[in-house]
């Protein structure tokens, strides 16, 4: 499954819920969710602790808009909206962790 997370991990529990519940698959961070993928943040620690259970992606335009594209943590792949579409197509189902 492609898990789409759009909340900052320091504001809401969406990323935690996803990490704790979802079966191995992929996580795409969009909107405020992209803050989780920044170097040195609490979100990065959580994503690293998940230890390769999920392929990690973040929406580049959302990172750029927030001035954090150069802070992307190791192990996360930045995609554009076309890449977002490809990910949705690649996985059989998607779930937005609102």
């Amino acid at each position: 499954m492609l898990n789409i997370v759009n909340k900052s991990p320091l504001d809401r529990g969406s990323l935690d819920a996803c990490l704790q519940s979802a079966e191995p698959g992929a996580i795409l961070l969009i909107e405020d969710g992209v803050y989780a993928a920044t170097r040195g943040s609490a979100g990065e620690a959580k994503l690293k602790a998940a230890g390769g259970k999920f392929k990690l992606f973040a929406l580049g335009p959302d990172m750029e808009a927030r001035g954090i594209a150069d802070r992307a943590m190791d192990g996360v792949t930045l995609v554009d909206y076309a890449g977002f579409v490809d990910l949705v197509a690649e996985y059989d189902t998607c779930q937005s962790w609102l």
Partner: protein
Amino acid sequence: MKFSILINEGPYTHQASDSAYQFAKSVLAKGHEIFRIFFYHDGVNNATRLTTPPQDDRNIVNRWSKLAEENKLDLVVCVAAAQRRGIVDEGEAKRNGKDATNLAPGFRISGLGQLIEAGIQSDRLVTFGD
């Protein structure tokens, strides 16, 4: 591949309708089909033609209407959510005794069954919300 999109939040407060728009454009650019875009909860506010954003801001409503016209998209507004929030077409105005309509071009008002049908008929249903 056949996509449908669910939008749960109104324009200008939450990024959901912006993200959904960018996603929808890319779905079409990639040669996929969009079966339906369904507007639910405050998402129905994407469908009022009476908005006037400042000139240097994006016009979210017009953007949807244009995308729908150019690509023959089916933009469906949930009727119960629309009635609660004052999104009105001619049929609704007549039925409920309203003196005005505000549904933007390219949108239509219908029931929640349209969302379930979109889930059944599409290969993927992607939700944008809060």
